[in-house]
């Protein structure tokens, strides 16, 4: 089997435009609450879900919209849900962190780590009631330190559940550098539960596609779970309006707010510790510059990479198609909203 690059690119473009549409709605004040985008994760999601068949299950975290777009859940209903409309996918009750679609066997949760046990349960149902079907769990590198997630690895491994665990490793959990709070290496950690564990460049859709093909085949054959560690990025920070990115985007305002209490803390008595305090302050500065640096300098764009696989002409055509679909969904959503407003 070979990947269909055009199809992969189309899916990635759909996700990207959809997330941009959500960002627009959020910035206009139409979408309440927090808003976590999946921008930067498109290659991971597209590469994995290209193997999804009807009857497979999806278990998602707080960045659930890209997989649901890839799964074919109605975009207009999702938009309505995210702007808190009663005509939305979940009647305006769930919102962007709690999206559910029973006909797609797709559920999400804002509780970090919970996508893994849910997927184990989906996998159990598949094992008993529809052998050959697979459950996909998406979660972040931060979630990999959550107890219930590691317990699920063990459960799935010992019960040989048909689960594909996908860790979207963007190196950060809000403002915490994951490496600083994670012992050992995540790939080896997963492997030690007795399941195949592969690390891939999650900005290269073809690499993800290939690694996922093996994991999915294994699950469909009833040979148990696999783990995929896909390195990716989060160019929009943790959530829209991320305070760390705002320090870059509007430094003067942020510095004016943040500095006085920090200076006071630095100068509090006894003063003996001033040198160490400068060091601690430096650490904070380091985190801010790392987040900003990753966003502005080092992040490769998975879409740009995938575009090269399909060529200029095709990528433009597919982008137009995807953009058109998202624009129509957005228009449709806003129109439906007007109608009963």
């Amino acid at each position, binding site marked *: 089997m070979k990947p269909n690059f055009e199809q992969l690119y189309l899916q990635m473009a759909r996700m990207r435009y959809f997330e941009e549409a959500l960002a627009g709605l959020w910035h*206009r004040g139409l979408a309440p609450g927090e808003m976590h985008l999946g921008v930067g994760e498109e290659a991971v999601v597209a590469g994995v879900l290209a193997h999804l068949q009807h009857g497979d299950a999806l278990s998602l975290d707080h960045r659930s919209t890209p997989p649901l777009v890839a799964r074919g859940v109605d975009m207009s209903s999702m938009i309505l849900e995210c702007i*808190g409309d009663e005509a939305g996918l979940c009647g305006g009750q769930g919102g962007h*962190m709690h999206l559910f679609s029973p006909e797609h066997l797709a559920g999400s949760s804002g509780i970090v780590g919970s996508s893994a046990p849910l997927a184990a349960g989906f996998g159990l149902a598949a094992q008993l009631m529809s052998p050959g079907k697979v459950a996909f769990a998406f979660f972040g590198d931060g979630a990999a330190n959550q107890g219930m997630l590691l317990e699920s690895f063990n459960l799935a491994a010992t019960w040989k559940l048909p689960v594909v665990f996908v860790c979207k490793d963007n190196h950060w959990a809000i403002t915490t550098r994951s490496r600083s709070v994670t012992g050992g290496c995540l790939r080896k950690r997963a492997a030690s539960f007795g399941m195949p564990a592969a690390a891939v460049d999650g900005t290269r859709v073809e690499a993800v596609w290939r690694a996922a093909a093996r994991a999915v085949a294994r699950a469909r054959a009833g040979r148990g779970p696999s783990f995929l560690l896909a390195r990716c990025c989060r160019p929009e920070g943790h959530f829209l309006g991320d305070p760390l990115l*705002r320090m870059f985007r509007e430094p003067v305002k942020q510095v004016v707010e943040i500095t006085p*209490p920090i200076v006071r803390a630095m100068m509090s008595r006894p003063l003996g510790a001033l040198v*160490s305090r400068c060091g601690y302050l430096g650490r904070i500065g380091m985190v801010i510059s790392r987040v900003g640096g990753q966003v502005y300098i080092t992040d490769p764009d998975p879409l740009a990479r995938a575009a090269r696989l399909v060529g200029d002409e095709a990528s433009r055509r597919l982008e137009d198609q995807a953009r058109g679909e998202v624009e129509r969904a957005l228009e449709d959503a806003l129109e439906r909203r007007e109608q009963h407003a």
Partner: protein
Amino acid sequence: MPRMSFAAAVEAALEKAMAEDERVITFGEDVTMLRRNLFVRFGPGRVRQTPISEAAFLYAGVGAAMAGMRPVVEIMMIDFIAVAFDGLLNAASKLKAFSGGKWNAPMVIRAGCGGWYGDGGQHEQSLWGILAGMPGVSVVVPSNPADAAGLMLSAINSDDPVVFLEHKFLADYWLDYLGGASRDGVSFDVPAAGAEGEVPQPLREVPMGAASVARRGGDITIVSLGVGLHRALEACETLAARGIQAEVIDLRTVAPMDRQTVTESARKTGKVLVVDEDYVGFGLSGEVAAVLAESGVSAGFARVCTEDVIPFARHLEERALPNVRRIIDAAEGLARMA
């Protein structure tokens, strides 16, 4: 008295406790950023970043407390304590009893709580009813900066576990941190008198288990706390214009509850309305009713609480939470009752 924000008052109390007592430490997710001022002053040994492993680090707080420390453990939002319940329910709260009174766990669990900003039902709960239902746990829910500082000091100095809940509409950095404050077109009904206010200097402890009377009145008693208290006070203006004078009690502490202040007021007015952002069933409002019944006070009773899973959509959320309209209606209904 200087004016301080609620958030600054809590931080000042924690900073004071940390400066005076080496055993006071704090840890939780993202504290390097969220508590950056404390981090700069006290360093990574005492202001510790944790992995997203609440079950482990909350229970580790119990162990550290048993071994002589006074940890302030942060569970970012109280909803997330679900994954870490064992450390509180089966360890911290039972230690004193299990050890025959010989051992205790002096720890504070600190978390944001509450809704009104459209974040959905997994991030906006109050949960103090569930928490206060455990024997051996104190739960405090301050409604203004002075109480927040004073109760934080008491919580840290307490020899037993205390859950300290700061409403996201009072500790203002939450809305900013969650990105919500960085855009136009979104406004939040933040109670100004709770988010900022005068704080006595030097900071003084506010005892746990002592309610305060936020407003005097003789027609009806409203019992509330946190943001609910401010909604109730707002409702009182309309009620007063309609000839109903409400007495408003700020519980400040859910457990232990100040039964005396509640029953005294209830005896006077004969009518009690509980305004509680937590769930209606099996919680604070029912507890108040039980306290009244047990004290032999026969009073008319009503409650305005959260009755269902909190909806995401803001207009649905507004209806589901104890809003001013609901409070006025319930209070009027109660006051007009013979």
